[in-house]
């Protein structure tokens, strides 16, 4: 059959184009992706450690958080008796499990731990597994001052037997805690490495930093994503900042935005003048009605 009619040819071209577009769209929909479950160990302030879980979907170079994934966290092996906690990943694909109180005896008796996280299969996401192995350690921060020089020292101590032994040549951040959660380095370097005695010593060069009203600033030492020890952070408050005293307390002034007791006088004057003026007139008019009423009563009914 010959296609003499140009409209038929156009129609076939249109169908071919449509088919190509649909198949291309379907192909895009079925782009291969991988899912990842990562497990990280955190010890804040040498207190209760927690396990941070993160689930992600990787498409090419891009990664997206996988939210709503149920994950179980175990000690050592994925067995029911080793369960430490259960979480469901949040909108950012993350969740965390603090080591429970019943784990304390195990925690005290061992120096090395393996934490395993296993996710339940979800629609479109198969079961994922991840683990982290860490050595028990603590991070210590201290300060010294002599002849006008202020020094910050930090030590990562690993538990060996019953002893806490400083770890040599470990990299860490030492600085001042910023309000946005980042760390302003105490010296010139971004990170510092512990020396042969396991101590990172940093000369404090951040004079004149604004502190709180007593001049306190918060020093911080942080070990980040270490293969053996995980993430540790420790803080210490020191009066090395410049005390901050507001020149004028904004909320003590009579401004438009403060409490009702601080209403500006001009506004009070204007508002009350108008209110008194108008309501004064209203009361005057009510009084006039009373007057009319009185006059009406005085009029004798006509017989």
């Amino acid at each position: 059959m010959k296609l003499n009619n140009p409209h038929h040819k156009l129609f076939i071209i249109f169908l071919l184009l449509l088919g190509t577009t649909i198949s291309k769209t379907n192909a895009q929909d079925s782009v291969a992706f991988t899912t990842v479950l990562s497990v990280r160990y955190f010890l804040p302030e040498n207190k209760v450690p927690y396990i941070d879980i993160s689930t992600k979907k990787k498409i090419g170079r891009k990664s997206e958080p996988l939210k709503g994934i149920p994950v179980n966290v175990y000690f050592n092996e994925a067995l029911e008796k080793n369960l430490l906690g259960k979480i469901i990943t949040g909108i950012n694909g993350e969740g965390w499990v603090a080591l429970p109180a019943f784990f304390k005896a195990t925690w005290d008796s061992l120096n090395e731990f393996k934490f395993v996280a296993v996710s339940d299969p979800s629609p479109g996401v198969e079961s994922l597994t991840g683990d982290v192995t860490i050595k028990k350690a603590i991070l210590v921060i201290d300060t010294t001052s002599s002849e006008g020089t202020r020094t910050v020292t930090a030590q990562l101590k690993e538990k060996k037997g019953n002893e806490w032994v400083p770890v040599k040549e470990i990299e860490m951040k030492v600085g001042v805690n910023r309000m946005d959660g980042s760390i302003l380095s105490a010296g010139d370097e971004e990170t510092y490495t512990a020396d042969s005695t396991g101590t990172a010593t940093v000369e404090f060069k951040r004079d004149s930093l604004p502190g709180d009203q007593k001049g306190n600033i918060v020093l911080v030492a942080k070990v980040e994503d270490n293969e053996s020890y995980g993430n540790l952070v420790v803080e210490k408050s020191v009066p090395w900042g410049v005390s901050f005293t507001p020149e004028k307390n904004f909320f003590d002034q009579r401004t438009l935005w403060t409490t009702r007791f601080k209403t500006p006088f001009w506004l009070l004057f204007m508002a009350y003048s108008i209110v008194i003026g108008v309501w004064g007139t209203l009361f005057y008019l009510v009084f006039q009605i009373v007057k009319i009423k009185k006059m009406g009563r005085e009029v004798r009914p006509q017989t």
Partner: protein
Amino acid sequence: MEKLQKFSPEKITSDLLPQKFGRRGIIWTAILIIICCIGAFAYIKQLRKGLIVTNMGDYVSWGIYISNFVFFVAISLVGSLITAIFRLSNVPWRTPLTRISEMIAVSAITFAALIIIVDMGRPERLVFLFTHGRLQSPIMWDVIVITTYFFLSLLLLYITLLPDIRILIGAKEKLGKPFSKLYRWLGSYWKGTAGQEKIRDRAITILCIVIIPVAFCIHTVTSWLFATTYRPGWDSTNFGAYFVSGAFLVGAGAVVVAMYVFRKVYKLDHYITERHFDKMGRILVMLALLYLYFNINEYLVPAFKMKKEEQAHLSGLFAGEYAPMFWFAILVGMIIPILIVVFKRGRRPKPMFVAGTMVVVGAWFKRYLIVTPTMLHPFLPKYDAPARYSHYFPSWEEWAITAGSLAGVLLIITILARIFPVISIYKTLTDHETEQPSS
């Protein structure tokens, strides 16, 4: 009016006395009561469960209730337009319109105050406005000015009614018992003496002088509730004048509708004449053109600049989700009524009624457009908000309460018109007397 000269005072009094509801009146009142009851039921549900029954949320925290509030405030302005401005400027044909506009003003401002309480969710907290109110807050200004305008409107209605109440007491035999006690309680003391007349006249003049700035304030302050916040569509220095001009238009539209309905129902053709419609038509055109001018300023100037922050809001209005409603409000609320009424033939009662209805309906949607789309487009980016927060459509409870409040306004007007004359008998008789050719 020429025909009116041939009427005897007895005929005029008889024509203007309140009339009993006929079958249509009873059905009309029953429908209004039923709608009010449904609204009350929805409000009780809202009281019990909280504002969760509404579809308002984090972004649209002012929805249909506040739109309705602005609408009522706008309509209430009519009392000052017709009564005060016409009286002070000595407009001779105002008599049949003043009472109607005063009734509309009182009923609208009553429901404006009530709908704000509905929007609060926790009505018992209203008292906190007085115990903990900050004079810095525009909300506080609104509370003060609405309360003031309510009392002023009530006082204006009452004082102008006094001579009519005397006539109503005198017509006990014709009117029957139902309201005779009320009439006596309200105005048995009015004897119409020269002294009383003098005080009453002075009181009305004072009221008319005071009510105009208060009426301007009420709608300017309402506009400031919006304009003092930094949001697309509200961030305008023009808002006070824009709101006041819109209020005058919708008020005039409402009076035209009421004029037509009362004329038809109470057979007042000799009192509310074609001349009144013609005059009101001219005013309506002028007010519609004025409001259109402000609308062009409010929308065209920002659209010319199209600041990024306002783009989503304006695009939504001009060509997006709210475009049908926006163009409906502009066309039906302003342009078509202008086209109808600008011609002499359009200023006859029926086309005027159509134009007035269009103005009122368009004005309601206009208020909705002022409030809701802006709330959906805050300057700060929405973060971590559920998708439903990006849209707003009132829940059935909100619709029921809104319909109930609209029915409530009409019910108050209906009841007032049943109890009191819709046209001042006393003033009509006085006008009739002065217009009589001296024999």
